[in-house]
């Protein structure tokens, strides 16, 4: 055990910090759930890419810098410390990227990863369907092979930023006779094809970036299949699972929120009771715990270990922590907590309300926390299905 950064890691931290201090926009961008904000965020991603910081753990040939996961954690700490913009292509770079690295052919990697790293192509994910939510194996959308194409029919829904995204990755039933986890395939679908209809859905924050996508016989080239046909479930659940979770929700994000929560408490301490102070401190401790557990897990991975169902522990921990932090913040804000930023009396309300909307989604997306608790009980504690 050695809980000190190496000189190389410290040097990388300084380099990232210096670049971010020079380049992070001084004014916050518009929400990436609006078309204007979406494009502003793509511009930022291009700048990040040009600076060599778009995807630090990716190989150089795909637009990364070949860093390891520890350096990734360091980069994320600096990224959140600098209050840099949210990652508009997170579904691509954090979720699809690692899966492409593991399952993609050389041609697929060369075709998709560089444009993903630069956000020339922004990705949405297509797991959920109207009748396949927590029960994802109930997927009905089909992709039927016709010569060198798949013909896609069905509906996907709850696609974040799907209203603006260029591509969707998802699971489709390539064997129409198949049941449950069998016969599914992981397919990459351009959203500008004939036969694809994207319909925006307004979500809790009132913005219409969420989307449902209808496929009415869209023809997708067969080379857009990722991994073996019929084993899409295995591809989707692959060992890259932990890495995806780690990248999507690295600890720095929650440490940054905890730091802001402590600052908010200090500004308003005289109006807060002792129980609120306790909640604030407990949130800060939990953000530290999440950080420590992540460093521990990354150390195990770098030493050749494997992570399986343990990823479910993470999902529960960060999503519930995020909610507790935003609930505490809104309570500290008191009567101001419900005001939108444009309200006359909304001084010092920050982005807590918007953050709260987003935190409310945490226990739902990426597998509900009920499903995660089932996974922990069955796969880590050995309880029967």
């Amino acid at each position, binding site marked *: 055990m050695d809980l*000190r950064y190496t000189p190389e890691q410290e040097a990388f931290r300084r380099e990232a910090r210096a670049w971010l201090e020079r380049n992070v926009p001084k004014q916050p961008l518009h929400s990436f759930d609006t078309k204007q904000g979406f494009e502003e965020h793509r511009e930022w991603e291009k700048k990040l890419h040009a600076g060599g910081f778009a995807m630090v753990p990716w190989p150089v040939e795909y637009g990364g810098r070949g860093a390891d996961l*520890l350096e990734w954690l360091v980069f994320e700490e600096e990224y959140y410390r600098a209050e840099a913009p949210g990652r508009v292509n997170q579904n691509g770079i954090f979720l699809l990227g690692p899966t492409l690295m593991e399952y993609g052919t050389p041609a697929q990697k060369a075709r998709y990863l560089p444009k993903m790293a630069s956000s020339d192509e922004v990705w949405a994910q297509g797991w959920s369907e109207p009748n396949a939510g927590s029960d994802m194996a109930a997927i009905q959308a089909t992709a039927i092979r016709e010569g060198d194409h798949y013909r896609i029919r069905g509906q996907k829904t709850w696609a974040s930023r799907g209203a603006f995204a260029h591509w969707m990755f998802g699971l489709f039933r390539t064997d129409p006779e198949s049941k449950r986890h069998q016969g599914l395939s992981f397919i990459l679908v351009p959203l500008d094809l004939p036969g694809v209809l994207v319909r925006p859905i307004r979500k809790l924050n009132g913005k219409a970036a969420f989307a449902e996508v209808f496929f009415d016989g869209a023809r997708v080239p067969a080379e857009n299949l990722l991994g073996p046909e019929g084993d899409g479930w295995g591809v989707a659940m692959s060992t890259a699972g932990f890495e995806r979770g780690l990248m999507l929700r690295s600890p720095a994000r929650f440490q940054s929120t905890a730091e802001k929560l402590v600052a908010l408490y200090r500004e308003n301490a005289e109006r807060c009771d002792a129980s609120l102070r306790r909640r604030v401190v407990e949130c800060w401790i939990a953000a530290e715990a999440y950080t420590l*557990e992540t460093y521990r897990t990354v*150390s195990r991975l770098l030493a050749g270990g494997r992570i399986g169902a343990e990823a479910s522990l993470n999902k529960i921990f960060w999503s519930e922590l995020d909610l507790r932090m935003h609930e505490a913040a809104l309570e500290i804000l008191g009567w101001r907590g419900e005001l939108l930023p444009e309200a006359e009396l909304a001084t010092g309300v920050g982005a807590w309300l918007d953050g709260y909307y987003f935190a409310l989604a945490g226990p739902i997306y990426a597998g509900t926390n009920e499903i995660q*608790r089932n996974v922990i*009980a069955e796969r880590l504690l050995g*309880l029967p299905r």
Partner: protein
Amino acid sequence: MQFIFSEDQLALQETVRDFLAGECPPERIRALWESESGRSAELWGKLAELGIPGLLVPEDRGGMGQSEIDAVLIHEEIGRAGLAEPLVSTAAVAAPLLAELGDAERAGPWLERIAGGEAIVAVGNEASPIVADAHVARLLLLSHGDEVHAVDPADVESVAQPATDPAQKLFRIGWKPRESTCIAAGKRGRALQAAALDRGALACAAQLLGVGDQLLAMASSYAVARKQFGKPIGSFQAVKHQLATVKVQIEYARPMVHRAAWSVAEAIPGRSVHVSMAKLAAAEAAAQAARTALQVHGAIGYTWEQDLHIWMRRAWSLGNAWGTISFHRDRVTDAVLAPDARLGPGTTF
């Protein structure tokens, strides 16, 4: 940066786990409850053969010369076994405290005696008036203001304070500080007291992880074996989700305990706060594990003859030892809300 244990450290942990599983089954713990002292000289001797009391005693004084990083895994096993022998006071606190003293300061032959299994040392701390295991101690390390005293148990009055855990032997000590017993005072005395508190709380935190692990394991196997409505109760989500929640709580307390061990071993400036975070989290996780394990067992878990309460009582008892949850939360709160606190991304290590 490498947050993992070495092969050697993990191998020693496994050795101790196997040893305790063989030597310290629930029947033995119950037999000790009924004995006069509640302690077993024979078991202590075997622990000494394994090197456990002298884990932190330097090798040239007859010990294992290990660090808190090695010891933290051993204390997890002690907790898992439900073993209440005075290893927190003797092995985790007294040994390094005495090792820090020069012989002139009366560390004397005590290090060799601890390592050899000949001496149990009981230690008082500022967080409570209770001293555990004074009845079997050959040396008492007691605090008085900024002074630390090495006191002969024959010179004090010990009044037993029966507690919920029959394995926990607690005493109020009546004594008068004398110049001849004072081994450190002033800043040095305070530093030794602070180090003792950190080490005691760290060892308890590690034991609480083991206690929590064991409670969760017992509840999980009971949920597999016990059938109601024609199937194992562990197949019901109401049961699964409670146990999963405990698992989350334990697994996020664990890295805090392991980090605190590193911080104490390396004398990192923030070590006291790291220890308090660890003790707080481990005590809460173990208490939740106890509460949930009882609920999953139902009425059978509420009986004296079911073994569950061996570990439930360890959870309660260790939760109070070397600083309560509230005591440690206050220490963290003071640090987090201090005007110059370093918080936020990149400040953890």
